[in-house]
């Protein structure tokens, strides 16, 4: 040791005194207020038949799109800081149905998961999948909720019956008034869509002649009839309709992310567009104060002699 004995004694006494004060502070210093950013969200999950297609993977497992959507929703809710709110909705036919308005995610995590686990194709009230119209109703209903949530719309983008690009259902609200993200699900290859019976069991696949391949309105309009010509008859097959969802999200002022790898992709996107609220949380400093005391004490007792050469 290069320090003289009196100096060592002085430093030790000083360290002990500071450590003592730190421990006292850790015990009695009041909690401090810290602001964290929280947001309100509404998860709308596609429960139409095309979501039964098994062409997505989580880890090493290949699962169906609906399971993926539910698992992704679960992980996203889990990634939100306490104080954030999340609500749940499903969509089928041409509308979204809100099943739980946003609730605080930590206190109600169990109930949110209970409800999420119930989402299945048998809840559908009709056998069609009009993605854009359903999205519009989700936006309209989100406006009725205070505080207004950011909409997260999880879908494969499969429109059944199909819609022609030029004959889109009109979006009459202001784009971007309700912020939101469309999360695209599904693989890029066209695969058959399982058909479910009333008990939700898979019974064969949708056949080529069981679905509409053309926009109904285009067929009935003389000027647009040619739009339907020469279209491939592939509507009984499904893949992730990326370009369609991009178009739709532009129309309503949403962001679009395709097959995100982690919930953070969604959370980051949401933080960019959502109106976040500041939520004060009580924060206890004791860990920091006790750590300082601990490090100081260890400095006194570290075996320095093992590292310094003895010059005797």
């Amino acid at each position, binding site marked *: *040791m290069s320090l003289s*004995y*009196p100096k*060592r*004694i*002085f430093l*030790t*006494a000083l360290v*002990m*005194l500071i*450590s*003592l004060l730190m*421990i*006292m502070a*850790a*015990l009695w210093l009041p909690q401090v207020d810290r602001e964290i950013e929280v947001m309100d969200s509404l998860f709308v999950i596609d429960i139409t038949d095309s979501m039964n297609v098994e062409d997505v993977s989580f880890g090493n497992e290949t699962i169906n799109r609906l399971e993926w959507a539910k698992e992704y929703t679960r992980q996203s809710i889990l990634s939100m800081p306490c104080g954030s709110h999340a*609500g749940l*909705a499903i969509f089928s036919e041409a*509308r*979204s*149905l*809100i*099943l*739980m*308005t*946003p*609730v*605080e995610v930590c*206190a*109600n995590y*169990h*109930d*949110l998961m*209970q*409800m999420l686990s*119930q989402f*299945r194709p*048998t*809840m559908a*009230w*009709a056998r069609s999948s009009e993605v854009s119209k359903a999205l519009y*109703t989700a936006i309209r*209903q989100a406006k*009725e*909720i205070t505080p207004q949530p950011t909409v997260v719309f999880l879908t494969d983008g499969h429109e059944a019956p199909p819609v022609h690009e030029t004959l889109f259902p009109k979006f009459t609200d202001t784009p971007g008034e309700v912020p939101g993200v469309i999360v695209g699900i599904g693989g890029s290859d066209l695969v058959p869509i399982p058909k479910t019976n*009333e008990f939700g069991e898979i019974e064969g696949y949708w056949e080529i002649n069981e679905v509409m391949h053309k926009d109904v309105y285009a067929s009935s309009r003389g000027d647009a009839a040619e739009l339907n010509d020469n279209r491939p008859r592939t509507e009984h097959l499904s893949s992730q309709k990326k370009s369609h969802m991009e178009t739709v999200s532009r129309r309503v002022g949403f962001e679009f992310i395709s097959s995100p790898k982690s919930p953070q992709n969604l959370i980051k996107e949401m933080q960019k567009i959502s109106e976040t609220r500041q939520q004060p949380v009580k924060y206890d400093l*004791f*860990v920091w104060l*006790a*750590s300082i*005391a*601990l490090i100081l*004490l*260890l400095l*006194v*007792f*570290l*075996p*320095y*002699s093992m590292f310094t050469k003895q010059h005797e």
Partner: protein
Amino acid sequence: MMLFGLEWAFPLVLLLLPMALLPWFNNNLDKTVAWTALVPHDPLSRTISLALKVLSSVVIAALLLAVASPAIPERTVERFGEGAEIVLLLDRSRSMDDAFAVTTQAANYSVAGDNSKRRVARTYLTEFVKKRPDDRFGFVFFSTNSINLLPLTYSKEAILATIEANSLGKGLSDTNLADALMNSALMFEDQPYRGSRIVLLVSDGGQLMTDEAMELITKRYKEMNLSIYWIYLKARQEMTLEPSENDNILYTDLPERKVHEFFKGIGIPYRAFEAGSLDEFAKAMDEIDEQQYQTLIVEELVPHEPKADLFLWLALLAMLPLASSHLYSYWGVRKAHE
């Protein structure tokens, strides 16, 4: 992470615990003495120096344990309360979008307005749920297929949010009463009997059920000790669930009367409230509120309880004599050098 029955926020810190032995392996504070034989044999000093080492070890260990932030994990405790376990069965059919308790025909056509039956039901149910602190509520999604959307929960926030969501948007085209009644009973399956079990149906109509379904419902409801409360939102004031003397011939075969007959015949506690006005609706809710205060076993969630303070206190108690002794020796050394 759980260790020793406690939940540790930073369990890896515990790996540093051997550091508590450091005071025993160094002589940073020893004074170099020319000839040890000169040092007098002093048992008191030896004891004190030993005690100081023990104290140092205790402080280091206690601080490490405190920094690892132990807590008693969240747990449930059972206590006796007063109330009931209630499954809500709210009709979501299109007709529930019609205005409630209107006298003119024209007003009937304001679809999904603020005074729609579904919104009125929302208002009163919300009030009801808020009044009942100990009750556990469940919610059945009532459509073509019914689904036990929200299994019985104590969270008022969750059930209120589900009731709220039910009032949004428009009604569904198809509802299946028999299926919904069956699923409501399933909510109680595999659950210990905690107290009064109620299925609270709010609807503006009835549905004919198959004999098979009725048989199954009868069996289940009896087995599971359920009671049915039906708040029937009347469309026409003069129509009653019980047949009366001067009955309109059109009413005799209405499905709601058939359902009423069926409920009466199951042989379980059953009560129908016919609400033709907001006032009657409120009264029905109040009556259910008053009746349902039997003893109920309530599971209460005790939030997680931080326990780091215990270790900080231990560190403080050990630190006080340790710091004093070091301050004293500093004072002594300074005195000696003067």
